[in-house]
């Protein structure tokens, strides 16, 4: 949703001019009044409370008054901020300035901010009223929850469903860069508390994480939903994907394109980007899970407070692109070590709810021909640690390392099917049962290891094993014989050294490899650019010809006008005919001198008719040296100029 009018399009100078016009229209003796406000009269120790004093009816030349916040034992002023406002109601202007004090209490109790005076620059005095503040002791409260509910605004929840959480409420998000924490996080199991700004509005941007469980085992995949909320009036842009803080957890890769939705948060429109991923802990213990997200967003920035005129300073305020690391809420994850008791020998770290099955193809082979075992393990769990079912050692079969293929069914990569193909070669003939295959995993629900036997058929093996030819070891062989050494078929040593190189490091890792190629490429590009510039700078023969023709045309026109002034008929007609020839020559792209009346008649008979008197007069002048009869040269000049206009080249 975009605003109907973009104020950034308004020229800054015009804004300033309008501002001064508004200021000039303000009444010079407006009635000045004072109002005061506290954002939460009841808060916890350490919470930030904002007290705002607003002076209304200010004049154009009034600076910010010097407001001295009274000292109160136990209260500390964390900082101040100032703001200016102009309101136009029914055509009349009202100006106000306000100063906010951000305070915090160091101990619980009832505080009273006493009445004090504010001296305005025009000599007046304004009196404040006492302000009561009740501070609660939150030392026994959970670190992530606020035990009392602030009066305003009431706690709000996101109105769209989130990932169900079976392990209690989601802890509230942290204070994201100046916004106050949510008032009451305990809003049920399917809600996310919203951090708010000092004024009560929900934060411009915030990050919320929802793990499905807070109890897990080492290596177990925990699905986590990550949600990034951007208020519609904040032009936030992501700098990167959310990342886990610290090194207590490993996270699956996030999708570059998150799911985007429009949601309402505290009746404010937000854009929500969400990811579904999974985390796992490599070691046991209690670890806080928290994420952060690099973000750029537009933030209004006030002009310096000491600017001479607060109204001008208001207009100097401008939005600024701010880089901020948005931190999510925190969840404490209890990671348990896997029990040693009952751990199967073939356990590889798989945790979850998994089902193994297997087949073998083909059912009949010859000795030495491979049989492919096809194992499928499906369900929910940490598939990174799911390995192929272990085969019981069997001298009748020689097994090879299996190949794995993974198909995930969900975005968090915790559900899916892992497929293993393993070659196994019979060592003798007969009807051979395949080795027993067992798959073990840890079930976090029952807190027990589970071992599944994968049923495999027997294979009919025909033929016999070829006898390998072995080399006779030398008499002086001192090397211990090992079963590995490939006995048969090894191609013997080479007797030549071959091409030697000092190291195997590829050339592209050397700087010169890129420097030489890059330098030459740059030279080629430079040469092409220079050639283009040079080609564009060359004089164009067409342009030169046109310029010459136009210059000659102007000269002939001047000669024509001069002849009219001197009443020189001969000179006029010669110049007029040449002018017409030049114009028509350019139009038809022929030499002007070649254009006779006959030539013109062939190309444009109508034009030739109108030009006949002119050419006749010109011929007569050429052959007789003078024009016939009394001639009105001014009228002839107008006629020629009309013809020139008609004869203009396209």
């Amino acid at each position, binding site marked *: 949703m975009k605003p109907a009018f973009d104020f950034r399009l308004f020229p800054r100078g015009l804004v300033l001019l309008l501002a001064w016009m508004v200021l000039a229209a303000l009444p010079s003796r407006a009635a000045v009044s004072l109002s005061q406000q506290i954002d939460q009269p009841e808060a916890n120790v350490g919470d930030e409370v904002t007290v705002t004093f607003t002076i209304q009816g200010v004049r154009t030349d009034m600076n910010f008054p010097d407001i001295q916040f009274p000292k109160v034992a136990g209260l500390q002023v964390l900082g101040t901020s100032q703001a200016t406002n102009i309101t136009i109601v029914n055509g009349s202007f009202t100006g106000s300035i306000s100063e906010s004090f951000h305070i915090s209490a160091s101990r619980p109790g009832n505080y009273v901010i006493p009445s004090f005076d504010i001296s305005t620059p025009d000599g007046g005095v304004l009196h404040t009223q006492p302000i009561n503040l009740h501070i609660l002791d939150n030392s026994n409260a959970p670190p992530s929850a606020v035990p009392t509910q602030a009066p305003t605004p009431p706690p709000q929840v996101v109105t769209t469903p989130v990932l169900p959480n079976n392990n209690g409420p989601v802890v509230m998000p942290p204070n994201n860069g100046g916004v106050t924490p949510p008032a009451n996080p305990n809003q049920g199991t399917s809600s996310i508390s919203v951090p708010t700004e000092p004024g009560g509005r929900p934060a411009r941007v915030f990050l919320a994480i929802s793990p499905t469980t807070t109890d897990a085992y080492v290596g177990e995949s925990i699905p986590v939903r990550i949600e990034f909320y951007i208020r519609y009036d904040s032009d936030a842009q992501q700098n990167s994907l959310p990342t886990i803080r610290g090194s207590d957890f490993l996270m699956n890769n996030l999708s570059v394109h998150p799911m985007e939705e429009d949601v309402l948060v505290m009746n404010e429109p937000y854009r929500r980007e969400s990811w579904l991923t999974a985390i796992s802990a490599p070691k046991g213990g209690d670890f806080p899970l928290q994420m952060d997200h690099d973000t750029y967003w537009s933030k209004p920035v006030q002009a310096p407070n000491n600017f001479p005129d607060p109204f001008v300073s208001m207009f100097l305020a401008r939005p600024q692109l701010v880089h901020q690391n948005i931190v999510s809420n925190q969840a404490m994850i209890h990671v348990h070590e896997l029990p040693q008791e009952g751990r199967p020998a073939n356990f590889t770290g798989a945790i979850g709810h998994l089902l193994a099955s297997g087949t073998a193809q083909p059912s009949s082979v010859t000795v030495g021909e491979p049989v492919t075992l096809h194992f499928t393990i499906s369900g929910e769990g940490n598939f990174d640690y799911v390995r192929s079912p272990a085969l019981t050692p069997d001298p009748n079969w020689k097994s090879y*390392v299996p190949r794995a293929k993974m198909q995930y069914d969900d975005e968090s990569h915790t559900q899916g099917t892992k497929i293993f193909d393993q070659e196994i070669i019979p060592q003798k003939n007969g009807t051979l049962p395949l080795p027993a295959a067992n798959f073990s995993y840890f079930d976090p629900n029952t807190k027990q290891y589970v071992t599944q036997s994968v049923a495999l058929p027997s294979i009919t093996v025909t033929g016999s094993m070829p006898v390998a030819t072995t080399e006779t070891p030398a008499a002086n062989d001192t090397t211990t014989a090992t079963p590995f050494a490939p006995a048969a078929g090894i191609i013997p040593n080479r007797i030549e050294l071959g091409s030697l190189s000092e190291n195997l490091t590829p050339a592209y890792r050397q700087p010169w490899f890129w420097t030489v190629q890059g330098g030459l490429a740059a030279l080629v590009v430079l040469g092409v650019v220079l050639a283009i510039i040079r080609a564009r700078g060359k004089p164009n023969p067409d342009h030169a010809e046109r310029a010459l023709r136009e210059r000659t045309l102007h000269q002939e026109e001047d000669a024509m006008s001069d002849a009219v002034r001197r009443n020189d008929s001969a000179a006029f007609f010669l110049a007029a005919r040449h002018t017409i020839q030049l114009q028509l020559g350019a139009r038809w792209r022929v030499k002007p001198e070649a254009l006779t009346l006959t030539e013109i008649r062939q190309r444009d008979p109508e034009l030739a008719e109108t030009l006949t008197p002119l050419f006749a007069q010109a011929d007569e002048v050429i052959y007789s040296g003078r024009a016939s009869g009394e001639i009105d040269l001014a009228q002839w000049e107008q006629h020629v100029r009309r013809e020139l206009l008609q004869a203009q080249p396209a």
Partner: protein
Amino acid sequence: MQFLIQRAGLLLRLFALALVLFPSLVRADTDLDAANHAYTAGSYEESAKLLQQLITSRGYSASLCFNLGNAEARAGHPGLALLNYERARYLAPGDPDIDHNLQLARKQAGLNTNSYRWWQIMLRSISWTIWFGLIVGCLTLLLIAIIGSSLKSSPPAFRKICKAVFFIFIPLTLLLGFVELSVIGFNHRIEGVIVAPDKATLRYSPFESADSTGTIPEGELVTVEDRHNDYLRIEARNGHYGWIQQKDIEPVVPGSFDIQPSN
């Protein structure tokens, strides 16, 4: 006859001079002969030691790595054998003898074969020097063509040829550049061979106290993806991955573990 005798004498003198000037040539052959003799005599450990010394002093070659792979295989060191066969294949990607012994050793070690496909052989067969020469040659030709076509003093026919060369070599150079970058991307993986006796332990995290996630057999070729102190995060061809101690693995390209992986 007299002429032939004179020529033979001249050749002998030249050969003697070459032996004086380049004694290392003679020594290299002698060392190789000694290593091969030890191999033939069944002293595989001795042969491997001599070949390793030869590589250290003279450098790598496909033949030396191949012979060293044979010696290590006979000596019962599948990891080192496969490492040297991989190095030999790296230097001579299309050599059928190297691939034969490599696959034989892999099979013997209980590993799947990993022969290169035709396009891998083709791309890997072109050395970086050739790529460099091709690109630099094309760029130089382009530069000459640009200068030649811009010179007013050059004959019109020469300028026309220069322009033709320019327009032919521009797409060719771009194509070669694209292929070169693709090959670099393909070869950018840092590979290593497991040399730990029997098998190496994979761990969840790069710490000795971390739980084991399984083992990876000796001789397996893996891709190194990350590094943390003395641990490397590796991924095997079968999809297994985890952290492994650096002492359990040797790089195919010596020194490549010192370079921080791109990801």
